């Protein structure tokens, strides 16, 4: 293919990529509609999203001259327009037709990508849709928008659809509010999104109107018009943390609250009882409320531990043993119920990963288009659930990894053809639950990590000595070292100054792990392991010298009993043999500068923590047992201490420190590297 042909093909490839993306969005929205309780009266945003997709598809197909796609999407657009404007009621027949049409559009786009034309007979589908459109439009009561106490400018900029949504909100008796807020030019999109997501919890954003505001050089003002069933007090309280002005929009003429006539309202109610019912089936709750409940449960767990402890002590006191047994029984029942309560609350906080995966897919598609690579994004296990907060926290690290795959992993088409690979690269995003962990993998079939190149760059950046030999594992470790980036040029895609070191740090903060498997010319796989939830942990309680520590059990893989003779020294570092591998060890009393007690050289314990390439053994004096703990923060002054994640109370009301396993591994690896380098 010469340069000229390639240039000619560009809009072609872009068209197919965007069309596929649009069809995916349409399908997703159709499925959401199909699966929801109120499938025949979906949220207006769903219909509008489908409409917008079809609308865009029609536009670009029209420009490219694909007439069948243009015609079908045009007819479909009319159907969707009638639906979103309230002229056509959604029925099962309509839903079926929407699915059929989407399938047909997909076939047409496939045909374009294979044969360069869209010649498929769609006449039956077209006439089915047209028949539906012939039905008499439903009458909807007109509302006198100009009598609303609205800024005249607002009505001038409403699109037909937004006009309709305003009328529809009035018809259903919603209250209308105008929210005004000023933002800086740099951050307004983020700030506004925050307000939008707050509003969507209780209402609908009908329009967003920007204006220059009081200081046009540095700021921007927005007016949001929203519709909601809630009243002014509620809206004010929800938005109280933000700097906005809220005004209720009413009809201007007094004593003539037109809203909806009583009769009409009744008719509406009997027409669609399903929609009224479905409203009461789900509740949206602010996550902070759940946090509060969970905290209370956490404290109850501690109280239960106190009771158990008391009952143990009572048991040995003469005359109390019977009471102690009763108390223990009660504690056990309490324990069981607390577990159920905790599990229930956890379940409420869990949301599936599909949203995040969708975001990642969209981003990957966009990036691949920008970098001119063709990439097939595959998703598996998107129904896997994870704590809501956790999902937010892993979004950025995952975006970074996917970006890396697009930018550094997948080769250009020419390179792939040259090395005998499939022309189209693949990135696989998958999630699965393993016990109390969720494993998320980002796998590409790209070039893999080039160890020689990693070494060259590390030498260049002074991270290692020129003559040091690197294993694959060392190379991977280097990728996670601050200041390392293998990209020769800073690209638009991943050159944003954040390295994998930040990714690892963020995941460690969540008690997670990240591991890499790579094979040159075959591909790279990032494996992220996260606990399903952060709040209450099972911990291993260990003793080091005179102190007691808690170790989150999800980072412990096993514990060994060794004798002093089992410890060897390799390259100035203490190791023990763990099956066929050497395991570096860390003496916790050294790490925290404690005075070591005389320990029995014939029985020392090694707790193996970490996973994959980052396993290490902590040497401790005794294992005291397992217990559920609630991690509390150390407060500002102590929060900077390296290697400590927080504190917890044990049942005997003793406060112990919880070890930050990730940070301790990190620290020990770093120290070791510096020693070797020095």
């Amino acid at each position, binding site marked *: 293919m010469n340069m000229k042909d390639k240039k000619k093909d560009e809009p072609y490839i872009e068209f197919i990529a965007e069309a596929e993306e649009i069809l995916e969005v349409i399908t997703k929205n159709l499925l959401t509609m199909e699966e929801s309780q109120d499938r025949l009266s979906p949220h207006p945003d769903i219909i509008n999203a489908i409409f917008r997709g079809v609308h865009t598809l029609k536009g670009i197909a029209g420009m490219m001259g694909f007439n069948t796609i243009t015609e079908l999407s045009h007819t479909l657009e009319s159907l969707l327009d009638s639906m979103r404007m309230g002229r056509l009621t959604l029925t099962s027949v309509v839903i079926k037709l929407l699915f059929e049409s989407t399938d047909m559009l997909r076939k047409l786009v496939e045909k374009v990508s294979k044969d360069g034309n869209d010649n498929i007979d769609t006449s039956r589908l077209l006439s089915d849709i047209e028949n539906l459109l012939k039905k008499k439009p439903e009458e909807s009561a007109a509302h006198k928008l100009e009598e609303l106490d609205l800024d005249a400018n607002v009505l001038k*900029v409403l*699109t037909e659809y937004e006009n309709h949504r305003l009328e529809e909100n009035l018809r259903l008796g919603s209250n209308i509010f105008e929210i005004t807020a000023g933002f800086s030019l740099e951050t307004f*999109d983020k700030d506004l999104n925050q307000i939008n997501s707050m509003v969507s919890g209780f209402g609908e954003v009908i329009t967003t109107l920007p204006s220059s505001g009081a200081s046009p050089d540095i700021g921007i003002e927005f007016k949001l018009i929203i519709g909601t069933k809630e009243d002014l007090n509620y809206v004010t309280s929800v938005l109280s943390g933000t700097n906005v002005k809220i005004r209720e929009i009413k009809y201007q003429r007094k004593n003539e609250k037109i809203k909806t006539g009583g009769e009409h309202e009744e008719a509406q109610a009997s027409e669609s009882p399903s929609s009224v019912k479905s409203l009461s089936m789900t509740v949206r709750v602010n996550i902070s409320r759940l946090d509060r409940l969970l905290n209370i449960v956490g404290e109850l767990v501690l109280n239960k531990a106190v009771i158990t402890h008391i009952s143990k002590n009572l048991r040995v006191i003469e005359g109390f043993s019977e009471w102690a047994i009763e108390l223990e029984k009660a504690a056990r029942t309490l324990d069981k119920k607390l577990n159920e309560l905790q599990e229930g609350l956890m379940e409420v906080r869990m949301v599936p990963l599909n949203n995040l995966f969708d975001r990642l897919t969209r981003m990957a598609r966009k990036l691949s288009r920008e970098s001119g690579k063709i990439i097939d994004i595959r998703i598996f296990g998107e129904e896997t659930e994870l704590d809501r907060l956790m999902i937010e926290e892993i979004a950025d690290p995952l975006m970074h990894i996917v970006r890396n795959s697009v930018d550094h992993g997948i080769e250009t088409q020419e390179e792939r053809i040259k090395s005998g690979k499939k022309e189209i690269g693949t990135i696989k995003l998958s999630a699965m639950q393993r016990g109390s962990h969720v494993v998320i993998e980002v796998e590409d079939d790209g070039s893999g990590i080039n160890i020689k190149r990693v070494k060259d760059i590390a030498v260049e950046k002074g991270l290692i000595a020129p003559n040091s030999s690197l294993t694959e594992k060392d190379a991977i470790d280097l990728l996670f070292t601050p200041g390392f980036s293998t990209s020769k040029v800073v690209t638009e895609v991943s050159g944003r100054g954040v390295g994998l070191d930040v990714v690892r740090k963020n995941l460690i903060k969540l008690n997670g792990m990240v591991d890499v498997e790579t094979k040159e010319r075959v591909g790279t796989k990032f494996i992220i392991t996260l606990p399903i939830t952060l709040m209450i942990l099972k911990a291993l309680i260990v003793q080091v010298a005179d102190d007691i520590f808690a170790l989150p059990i999800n980072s412990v893989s096993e514990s060994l009993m060794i004798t002093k003779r089992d410890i060897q020294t390799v390259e100035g570092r203490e190791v023990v043999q763990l099956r066929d591998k050497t395991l570096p060890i860390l003496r916790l009393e050294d790490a925290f500068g404690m005075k070591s007690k005389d320990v029995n050289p014939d029985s020392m314990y090694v707790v193996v923590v970490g996973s994959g390439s980052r396993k290490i053994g902590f040497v401790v004096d005794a294992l005291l047992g397992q217990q559920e703990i609630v991690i509390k923060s150390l407060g500002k002054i102590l929060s900077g201490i390296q290697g400590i994640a927080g504190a917890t109370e044990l049942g005997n009301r003793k406060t112990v420190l919880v070890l930050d396993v990730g940070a301790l591994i990190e620290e020990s690896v770093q120290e070791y590297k510096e020693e070797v380098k020095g």
Partner: protein
Amino acid sequence: MSKKILVVEDSSTMRSMIAAIIEEMGDFVVTEAGSGFEALKMLPTEKFDLIITDINMPDINGLEVVNFVKTHPNYKKIPLIIITTERSEEDRKKGIALGASEYITKPFKHDELQTVVRRIIG
């Protein structure tokens, strides 16, 4: 100096087609914005001679872009072209009433767009 044109359109295919059509004309530099918000952010960074905006976009609609530009002390002199469809006659009327100089209806031919652009800032 080449004149600068800001193209606001959420479909990337459409956006790059418009950019290609304009760049064909030779003496224009095109900046692309993938959404209304992006456009609002770009306005203070460069002095644009013309804005071409789609109407139907996810964050703010094209009419709001027109209204913002035409009521803003720093930008009100920038002419705008709105891209509409045959379906949205109301929106087209509103756009022109808000101060857009021209409209063009999808799908359009290369020379249609070029003629309109030239008529305004040629």
